[in-house]
């Protein structure tokens, strides 16, 4: 029982997702700032933003559905938190059964889909365009992302468990690309392109609701990077886990720093015609046993 409480509330559950997620995001912003040759915000800046937003007013525009607007960030955050149950940290997962990868995939889609629903709920034209883009992008990156997870799944009995994916570099590439799409970071920051559609789905969001979305975003950093470092880089203990996490985080940073935003059609084409075939190569290799 105490085990369960510690696992869900402290590590790797809520508290870790809260702190580590925000710290990851802070590090991401800080190091990207240095790459851009500027000082950048302090590492704890996302916390400050979060606390500030909590103290602000919730604004519900006339055209929007307030209930859905409140619900979406909570569901998004909750589904990401649930993923943590299946990820083995230090070699131990709270829930571990054959087929848990499928549930993880499902929960991760939930997290993104509710962002899109939030955009529709606000009733703002920019929010709607942002949501359409979010969904289009979801369709684009989800296929290679799922294929890459299933590639590993075939070898781990569809269970989220430590695995070193050295033989499957293409699956790893597909995973990282999908991860970048899920974070909406360059070159896939299409749904939130501020120069085109202000803030996309989050345009009308303010106050505690936006804070919840920030929290969900931080949680997605923690969850997806943890997933990658366990499933693809084989972290079986805490030490390896954090090293792997930072390597992944660095990859995310570099991509964020050097890529321009793609157009939505270009992103779609990139995912389906470049990354998906790569992922399928590895998938086919697993199915046919052509790996060493």
């Amino acid at each position, binding site marked *: 029982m105490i085990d369960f409480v510690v696992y869900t509330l402290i590590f790797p559950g809520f508290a870790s997702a809260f702190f580590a997620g925000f710290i990851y995001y802070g590090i991401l912003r800080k*190091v990207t*700032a*240095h*790459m*851009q*040759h*500027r*000082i*950048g915000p302090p590492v704890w800046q996302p916390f400050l933003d979060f606390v500030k937003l909590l103290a602000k007013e919730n604004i519900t525009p006339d055209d929007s559905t307030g209930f859905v607007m409140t619900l979406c960030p909570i569901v998004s955050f909750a589904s990401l938190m649930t993923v943590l149950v299946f990820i083995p940290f230090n070699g131990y997962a709270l829930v571990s059964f054959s087929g848990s990868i499928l549930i993880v995939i499902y929960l991760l889609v939930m997290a993104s889909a509710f962002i899109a629903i939030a955009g529709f709920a606000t009733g703002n034209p920019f929010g709607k365009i942002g949501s359409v883009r979010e969904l289009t992008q979801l369709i684009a990156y989800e296929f290679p992302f799922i294929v890459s997870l299933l590639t590993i799944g075939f070898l781990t009995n569809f269970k989220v468990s430590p695995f070193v994916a050295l033989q499957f570099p293409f699956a790893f590439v597909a995973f990282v690309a999908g991860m970048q799409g899920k974070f909406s970071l360059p070159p896939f920051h299409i749904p939130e392109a501020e120069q085109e559609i202000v803030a996309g789905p989050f345009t009308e969001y303010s106050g505690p609701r936006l804070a919840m979305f920030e929290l969900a975003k931080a949680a997605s950093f923690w969850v997806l990077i943890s997933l990658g470092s366990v499933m693809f880089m084989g972290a079986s203990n805490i030490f390896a886990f954090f090293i792997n996490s930072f390597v992944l985080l660095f990859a995310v940073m*570099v991509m964020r*720093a*050097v890529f321009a935003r793609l157009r939505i059609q270009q992103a779609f084409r990139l995912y389906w015609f470049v990354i998906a075939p790569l992922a399928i190569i590895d998938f086919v290799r697993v199915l046919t046993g052509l790996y060493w």
Partner: protein
Amino acid sequence: MGILSEAIKRILERPATRKYPKEKPKIPEGFRGRIEWNPETCIFCMLCAINCPTNAITINKEKKEWSIDIGKCIFCGRCHDVCPTKPKSVSNSKKYELAEYEKEKFRLKFRKSERGG
């Protein structure tokens, strides 16, 4: 890939930006900051007041008063250019942090006292 190599190179370098209020920028010679008035040499010829493009400078000849509204001043230095005295009694200083909470504080008034101070 030009951007990538530069981005990696910059990670450990000192950033190009500065934390301004803590770290002051270097002010070059000839910087045009707040206008300062030297009562020693001023002859109250009114040239600076007449030529000021925004009428920021006002002079009261009787009271020997020289005043400037920093809120109106555009720091063009024309008052300095037209000043006939030697050394010039109106000139740009290097002061640049001029923000105030109240508009009244922009209206600076100087008076030439008998002792000349």
